[in-house]
C-alpha cells in the first residue's frame, strides 16, 4: 500500500527550498585553500565566463518550507472523489496545510557534495487545518527524492527544454508517523477513511510530495520557490517506506528523451491495483511533460507552466506476453511491443482513458488517475503487462510508455545510507531490495549488486570555462573499492524482499579534505533484457571515516578543523547567528550547540543541518562544549552511539561495474546532457558531471 492506494487526500501549493550552494562544490570543503569570495554569489564575467564563488545562493539555510498549501481533493476507499475542497468534508471545510507549527523549519539536504541526486527532507511535521483546529497532524519521516525528470518542462517558443533544475520534477516519498487526528476527521471524505485505514494498522500513512517548477512557479519574484502537490494515502506494516510498490512503467525504446522519459515525453511512472482488484491507480504526476508557456501572453503576464496535451491517455492491459522464459534461462527477454508501436484494439483491453488533464487536474489529483477496472481487463491484469497508449481511434493507438518487461522490476527501500565506520572491523548497512512481477512480491527473484567504478569530477561546476576555479582537486569517488563489501548476488525470500547486507570498513580518508567516501552501489534483477532503471537509481552511501573522539578535545587539533569547515560552507551562520570559526563565539553559544548536536537526526533542530557528521566527531564536539557548560546543563543521555566493528560476515569480493539497466551508452548520455540545457545550478552541474563521466567507465 502507498499513496497510490485509496483513500487518498491531495493538497497543492508552493514550497521554498532555501538550499545552500557553497557546499555544492566539493572543492569548497578544503579549508586550506578556502577563499573569502567562496561565500559570495557567483559573478558573470565578460565573454560568457563565470566566477562561481559560492554559486547562486551562498546564504541558503537549507530550510524547506511548505507555503500556501491547501487540500485540493480527496477520494474515499472506493474511489469516491471529492475534487474540490468544498466536497472534501462535511460541512464544506476548506482545509489548509500548515507545517512546522511548533518546531523550526524542515531541512532539505544532499547526501554529500559528490552525491546530489537524492536530496532528503528532514524534520517536517504538517497539519491539515480546519480553521484553527488540526484535523490531522503527522510527521514525515526522512524522505529523499527519486525519479527526477530533467527536461520535463519545454519552452513553448523554442521547443527546447528549459535549462537546469527549473525544468525538473521529482517525487519525495516517505511515511507519516505520530498521527494526531482531530475530532472532525471522521466526518470528512477521504480524511475519515484515512483515519480508519491507519487505525489498528500500525498508525502510519504514506505521503509523496511532487515538486516541480523550481523558481518558475510564481512569476518574477519566485527565487527559491516551486510548486508542490502532496498525496497522502494508506500504509500497512511491512510496506516499503520510500517508494510505492506496484506496477512500474519505463521507457522501452531508444529516444532522445532517455534516460528520463520515453519518446513521447512520458517519464517513469508507477501504478497500483487496489487490494480488492477493483481499481487501478496510475501516477502521471511526475510523468506528463510540461510547457513553459511564453507565447501569446497578455501584457504584464509572466510565462507560466502547463501540462502538455498529449491527447487521450488510454491505459490498457496488453493481451500478448513478453516471452519470459524462466529464471533459469537468465533472461527476461525483450519486450514484445515497445514505445511507439501501433496497436489494434484486439491487442489490448482498455482499463480507462485519462483526458482533459491540466494543471488544475494535477493539483487536485496529484496526477494520479483512479480507474475502475472493467471485467475484460480484470481477467488479464494479474499477469499481463500494462501500457499507456496515445492517439485517438480509428487510427491505431501507439504505445506512449509501457510496463517493465514481463512486469518485472526491483527497487531499494532505504536507498540513501549514512554509515559510521569503526576503527577496526566492519559495520553493516542492510538495504531491502523489493522484487515485483506485475505488482506482486516476486519470491525467488535473482538479484545482483555491484559497486560503481571510480568516478571523477563529481561535485564541481563541470564548466570548462570556469573563471578562477578553486585550487582544491576534486576527489575520486567509489574508491577504494575494498572498503565496501557488496554481495554480488542474492535471491528474494517468500515476501519478494532480499536484504542486501552491505558491509563497510573505515575508508581511511580517501578524499583528504572531505570526510569519508561516497559509494554508489547499483543493483538490479540478475536477468538480461530487463527494462532500464532511472539513471540515478542506485544505493547512495556516505561511508564516514572512523574517528575516535578524544576524551579532552582541543580546539586547535580536533574541533577547529571541523567547525571552521562548517563556518566556511554555511555563511548563514556567521551572517545570521555567530561565527563557527571563532572558538569564543562557539563557547558563548555552547548551550545552543550542545542542544542541537544532541537532537535525534530526524529533529529539524539537529546539527549539522547537512547530517553528514560522524558520531565520533559529534561526540568530540559535545565533549569540547561540555567545558563551557554548567554541569546542570550537560545532559549526556542523547550522545550518539559510536560504531562497533565486527568481523566480516561473509567472504568474497565486491564486484565493480554497473548493472545493465543503469548503464548508459555514450549517445544516451550526450542526449541527456543536451536536454539539461544551459542551467548551471548545483543539481544540474552534478547531473551533467555524472552523465559526462559515467559512460567513460562503462566502456
Amino acid at each position, binding site marked *: 500500500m502507498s499513496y497510490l492506494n485509496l483513500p487518498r487526500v491531495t493538497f497543492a501549493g508552493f514550497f*521554498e527550498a532555501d538550499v545552500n550552494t557553497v557546499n555544492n562544490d566539493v572543492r569548497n570543503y578544503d579549508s586550506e585553500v578556502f577563499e573569502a569570495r567562496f561565500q559570495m554569489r557567483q559573478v558573470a564575467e565578460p565573454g560568457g565566463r563565470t566566477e562561481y564563488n559560492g554559486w547562486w545562493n551562498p546564504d541558503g*539555510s537549507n530550510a524547506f*518550507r*511548505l*507555503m*500556501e*498549501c*491547501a487540500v485540493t481533493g480527496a477520494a474515499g476507499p472506493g474511489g469516491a472523489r471529492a475534487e474540490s475542497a468544498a466536497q472534501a468534508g462535511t460541512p464544506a471545510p476548506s482545509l*489548509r496545510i*500548515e507545517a*512546522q*507549527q*511548533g*518546531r*523550526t*523549519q524542515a531541512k532539505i539536504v544532499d547526501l554529500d557534495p559528490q552525491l546530489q541526486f537524492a536530496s532528503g527532507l528532514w524534520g517536517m511535521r504538517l497539519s491539515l*487545518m480546519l*480553521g*484553527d483546529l488540526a484535523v490531522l497532524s503527522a510527521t514525515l519521516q526522512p524522505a529523499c527524492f527519486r525519479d527526477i525528470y530533467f527536461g520535463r518542462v519545454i519552452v513553448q517558443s523554442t521547443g527546447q527544454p528549459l535549462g537546469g533544475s527549473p525544468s525538473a520534477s521529482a517525487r519525495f516519498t516517505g511515511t507519516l508517523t505520530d498521527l494526531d487526528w482531530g475530532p472532525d476527521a471522521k466526518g470528512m471524505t477521504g480524511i475519515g477513511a484515512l483515519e480508519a485505514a491507519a487505525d489498528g494498522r500500525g498508525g502510519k500513512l504514506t505521503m509523496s510530495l511532487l515538486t516541480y517548477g523550481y523558481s518558475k512557479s*510564481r*512569476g518574477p*519574484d*519566485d*527565487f527559491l*520557490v516551486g510548486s508542490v502537490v502532496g498525496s497522502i494515502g494508506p500504509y500497512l506494516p511491512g510496506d516499503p517506506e520510500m517508494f510505492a510498490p506496484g506496477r512500474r512503467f519505463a521507457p522501452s525504446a531508444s529516444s532522445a528523451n532517455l534516460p528520463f522519459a520515453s519518446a513521447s515525453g512520458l517519464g517513469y511512472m508507477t501504478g497500483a491495483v487496489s487490494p480488492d482488484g477493483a481499481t487501478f491507480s496510475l501516477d502521471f504526476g511526475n510523468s506528463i511533460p510540461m510547457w513553459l508557456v511564453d507565447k501569446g501572453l497578455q501584457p504584464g503576464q509572466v510565462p507560466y507552466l502547463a501540462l502538455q496535451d498529449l491527447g487521450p491517455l488510454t491505459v490498457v492491459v496488453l493481451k500478448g506476453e513478453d516471452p519470459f522464459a524462466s529464471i533459469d534461462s537468465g533472461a527476461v527477454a525483450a519486450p514484445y511491443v515497445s514505445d511507439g508501436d501501433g496497436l489494434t484494439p484486439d491487442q489490448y483491453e482498455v482499463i480507462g482513458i485519462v483526458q482533459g488533464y491540466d494543471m488544475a487536474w494535477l493539483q487536485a489529483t496529484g496526477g494520479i488517475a483512479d480507474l475502475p477496472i472493467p471485467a475484460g481487463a480484470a481477467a488479464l491484469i494479474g499477469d499481463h503487462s500494462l501500457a499507456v497508449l496515445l492517439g485517438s481511434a480509428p487510427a491505431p493507438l501507439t504505445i506512449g510508455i509501457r510496463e517493465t518487461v514481463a512486469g518485472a522490476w526491483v527497487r531499494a527501500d532505504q536507498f540513501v545510507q549514512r554509515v559510521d565506520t569503526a576503527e577496526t572491523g566492519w559495520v553493516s548497512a542492510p538495504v531491502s531490495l523489493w522484487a515485483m512481477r506485475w505488482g506482486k512480491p516476486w519470491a525467488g527473484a535473482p538479484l545482483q549488486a555491484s559497486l560503481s567504478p571510480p568516478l571523477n569530477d563529481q561535485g564541481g561546476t563541470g564548466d570548462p570555462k570556469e573563471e578562477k576555479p578553486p585550487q582544491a582537486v576534486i576527489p575520486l569517488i567509489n574508491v577504494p573499492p575494498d572498503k565496501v563489501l557488496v554481495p554480488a548476488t542474492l535471491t528474494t525470500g517468500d515476501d519478494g524482499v532480499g536484504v542486501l547486507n552491505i558491509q563497510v570498513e573505515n575508508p581511511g580518508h580517501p578524499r583528504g579534505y572531505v570526510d569519508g567516501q561516497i559509494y554508489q552501489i547499483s543493483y538490479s534483477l540478475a536477468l538480461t533484457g530487463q527494462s532500464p532503471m532511472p539513471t540515478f537509481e542506485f544505493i547512495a552511501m556516505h561511508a564516514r571515516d572512523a574517528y575516535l573522539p578524544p576524551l579532552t578535545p582541543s580546539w586547535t587539533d580536533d574541533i577547529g578543523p571541523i567547525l571552521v569547515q562548517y563556518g566556511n560552507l554555511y555563511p*548563514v551562520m556567521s*551572517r*545570521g*547567528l555567530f561565527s563557527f570559526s571563532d572558538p569564543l563565539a562557539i563557547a558563548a553559544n555552547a*548551550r*545552543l550547540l*550542545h*542542544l*542541537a548536536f544532541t*537532537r535525534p537526526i530526524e529533529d*529539524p*533542530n539537529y546539527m549539522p543541518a547537512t547530517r553528514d557528521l560522524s558520531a565520533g566527531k559529534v561526540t568530540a564536539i559535545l565533549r569540547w562544549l561540555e567545558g563551557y557548560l*554548567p554541569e*546542570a*546543563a550537560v*545532559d549526556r543521555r542523547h550522545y550518539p552511539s559510536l560504531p562497533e566493528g565486527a568481523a566480516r560476515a561473509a567472504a568474497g569480493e565486491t564486484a565493480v561495474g554497473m548493472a545493465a539497466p543503469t548503464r548508459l551508452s555514450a549517445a544516451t548520455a550526450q542526449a541527456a546532457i543536451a536536454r539539461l540545457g544551459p542551467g548551471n545550478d548545483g543539481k544540474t552541474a552534478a547531473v551533467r558531471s555524472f552523465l559526462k563521466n559515467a559512460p567513460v567507465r562503462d566502456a
Partner: protein
Amino acid sequence: MLKVERRYIAAIQAARKPEDLHWLVQSAIELEHSTIPPYLAAYFSLKLGTNDMVADILRSVAMEEMLHMSIASNLMIAIGGSPQINRPGFVPKYPGPLPMNIGDGLIVPIGKCSVELVKNVFMVIEEPENPIDIPVRLLATAEGAGPEFHTIGEFYAALDKKLQEMGKDAFIKGHPDREMVDNTWFPPDQLFRITGPESASAAIELIVEQGEGTPTSPLDPEDEPAHYYRFQQIVKGKRLVRDPVTGGFVFGGAPVRIDERNVWNMQPNGDPDTLPKGSRARRASVQFAYAYTSLLNALHRTFNGRPEAIRDAMGLMYQLRLAAQDVLSTPLPDDPGMATGLCFRWRPTTAETST
C-alpha cells in the same frame, strides 16, 4: 511611572481561592510576554557583529523577560491553572497599549533601536516605583506607593501576599511536574520548581527585582543593573559603574552608543498584508510572523504538559533571529531605502489570507 489599573490589584485582594487568581496570573504571563517583541525587534535591528554593548543590553533584558514569562507560567501551573499562549489575543497589537492597560496609555511600537525608543518607551515600561536619581549617592529614602496608582511591582506584591495568605491550599491542584525548569538556559536559583508559598514568593521577588531593582540599589540580585537602569545606559551613553570615591553609582563607564550606520533602517510596525502580493518582502515577512507563531505554539506545549518542548522553542528562537535577518535585508518594495519591518503577530498560516 507605569500604572496598573486598580481593579487588577483589587481582584487579587478579593480572591478567595486559587482559581480566582488564574486570570490574573494569565495577565501577568501576557504582560511579561508583551515586552519581548519590542525589545527583540530593537535587538534584531542592530546588524550582527556591531553595536555590541547596546545589543548585549537589549538581548539580556529580552532574555530576562523570557525568564519572567516562564516563571509566571510555572506559577500558573503551580496553582492549578493552564497558561494560554497559543491564542490570537495573547499577542498585543503593536503599536498599542500593553496588557492590563499598563502604562496609562503608553503606546508601544515595533521599531528599530534608537535612543528615543529606549528613552520614551522601554524605560517607561521598566520604570521602577521610585527611580533612583543617579549619580546622586543612594540613600534609603524610598517612600511607599502613592494611594492613587499601583505599579507592576505592587501587582506582584499583592499576588505574593495573597498566595502567602492562602498558604499551601493555593497549590493543592498544582502540577509541579509539568513546570518547565530546564536549567540549560537559566540557572537553578532563577528557574526552579514552584511548589508552595515559599518558592512562589522567591519566584515573584526575582521577577520584580530583575525588572525594577530594589528601592535602594539599581542592581538586581545578580548584581546586574535592573532593566530600567540597563536601558538608561543607552540614553546616558555610558555604562553604569560604581563611583570609587563616593561609593554611589554613576553613568561613567565605557561608552554605550548606538552606531546608527549599523542599524537596519527598519520600517516601523511591519505588516505583511500591506506588502505587494507575491513579493519577496511579503514572503519573508509572512515567514517571520509564522515562525513567531510557531514559537508561541511551542511555548504553549511547553507549559501545558510537555516541558521538553522548550527545546523546540529554543530552536525557533534562533530561527526567528535568522528570519529577522532575512526580512531586514529585504528592501521595502515601494521604498527601497527602508528595510522591511518585522511583524510580531499571531499568524498561524502561510496562506495569503490570515484566518
